[in-house]
């Protein structure tokens, strides 16, 4: 099996507090994987380790084939990161944001132009190049963030609460694009508190107090817990796990 993300007993402690407690997961190439859990369950700590921003206390892991203990710089060049909170520069035009992010990711001038063309074609933002980013409607800004996070053709895209208070149509639009990226082979690793977003994932894991309490497809989790909605299944799993 070809895994984009693979961890074995990944653990992080801060003093006497264990934030991430022996996590073992494998995320397949091209999979949309939902990484869920309550606030404070350890998700952020786990993601920071996977992105090479935080060193694990014990255990091991590979992201895009690189060791998270030793090859963090290589990992960072192979992943993209996008969040609702992550800011484009609102005062810059669309094309200048694209150029800036491409250069930050170290693309050569030649590659940069090709990739900007490709991404803006794919995301349908070509007509917006001269517009000022901050004045665009949310849905277009989100497309631009997605383009910026994708310029260096990352193998894995981390989506950290990618949509916040967005209307149901824009949210569906966004997930349409994410599914296309996944179909083209990009692995998607997403955290969200919106269970309707989690429904788009091929598999999800639910973290409780540093451990993975459940991991399966949304359909299976609903069926196993006898719930009609993923929200109900989530509540059941988390509350069962805490008592």
């Amino acid at each position, binding site marked *: 099996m070809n895994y984009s993300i693979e961890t074995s007993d990944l653990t992080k402690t801060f003093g006497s507090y264990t934030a991430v407690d022996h996590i073992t997961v494998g995320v397949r190439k091209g999979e949309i994987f939902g990484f869920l859990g309550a*606030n404070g369950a350890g998700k952020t700590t786990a993601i920071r380790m996977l992105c090479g921003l935080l060193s694990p206390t014990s255990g091991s892991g590979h992201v895009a084939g690189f060791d998270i203990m030793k090859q963090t710089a290589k990992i960072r060049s192979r992943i993209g990161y996008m969040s609702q909170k992550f800011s484009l520069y609102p005062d810059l035009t669309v094309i200048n944001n694209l150029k800036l992010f491409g250069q930050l990711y170290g693309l050569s001038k030649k590659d940069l132009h090709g990739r900007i063309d490709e991404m803006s074609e794919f995301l349908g933002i070509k007509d917006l190049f001269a517009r000022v980013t901050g004045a665009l409607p949310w849905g277009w800004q989100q497309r631009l963030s997605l383009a910026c996070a994708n310029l260096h053709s990352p193998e894995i895209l981390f989506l950290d609460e990618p949509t916040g208070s967005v*209307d149901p149509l824009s949210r569906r639009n966004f997930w349409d694009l994410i599914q296309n990226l996944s179909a083209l082979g990009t692995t998607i690793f997403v955290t969200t508190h919106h269970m309707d977003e989690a429904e788009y994932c091929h598999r999800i894991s639910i973290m409780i107090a540093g451990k993975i309490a459940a991991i399966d497809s949304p359909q299976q989790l609903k069926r196993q817990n006898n719930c009609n909605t993923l929200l109900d299944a989530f509540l059941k799993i988390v509350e069962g796990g805490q008592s």
Partner: protein
Amino acid sequence: MEPSVIITDLHKSYGDQIALSGVSLSVPHGCLYGLIGADGAGKSTLLRICTTLVAPDKGSVTVLGLDVIKKYQEIRTMIGYMPQKFSLYQDLSVRENMQFFADLFGVKQQEREERMKRLLEFSRLAPFQDRRARNLSGGMKQKLALSCTLIHTPKVLFLDEPTTGVDPVSRREFWTILDELKKGGITIMVSTPYMDEAHLCDELLFLHHGKAVRQGKPDTLLNAYPYPLYRITSETATLTVAQNSPVPQGAVLMYPEGGGVHVAMKTEMSDRDVMSLVKPLIPRAERVERCKPKIEDLFVLLLSEGKEN
């Protein structure tokens, strides 16, 4: 008893950006009133006008019978407002933050201890009262912000997306607290991007581009949903349809929802007929069932209609 909030033909623009355009509503005493709409729909502006922080361009707004322009000082002592980014002092403990807000609102010393005790109990924050705000989880921070908003015993509460970024378990707890407040006679106006929370409100207002596109009780709104709605599912896979996918013949709308696909038909049909229309577009479809629309379905419909016009 007269309504706690009355808004008549409210307009507000920032430069040439229209934030609110002709909104009218009335919030009965003791009502849990929900504002739903996307970013930029006008929810925050509406709440800021009700809380006397922004002046309307046109129209009238009264809170507890008082005009928001003429009587703003009186209104401020009687309401609680929790903005989207509530400022807690990260270095102060839970208890110190509450004391700070008690000072700001001039809560008398003799009443203070009793009130803080009650709020700590009620927000389930008592075991954490000496913890610094920065070390609280997202859900706990929101409960502390709510407690600070309640320290002067307001009669009307205005909450701007209090549960954004909060996990489902904490969200449910937060709404249980809102329900208790309501039972205690407090009127609450709350905005939310979560459609499951919209179902918990007594009344709803859908805002879109500054206009009230629908308002009423959730059940009444859903009973008025004009089309028969069908849910298509598969036992083994998440079904989805692309945004630009054609809709089947006889259908008004088709969109992914909750791991399946929802199709609104122009007329009532047998499940079998729906399946034969849908199957060519969604090969993995296995099951069709007639389903009751939820607020999410209504919202999708309203936005799609708005798009065509």
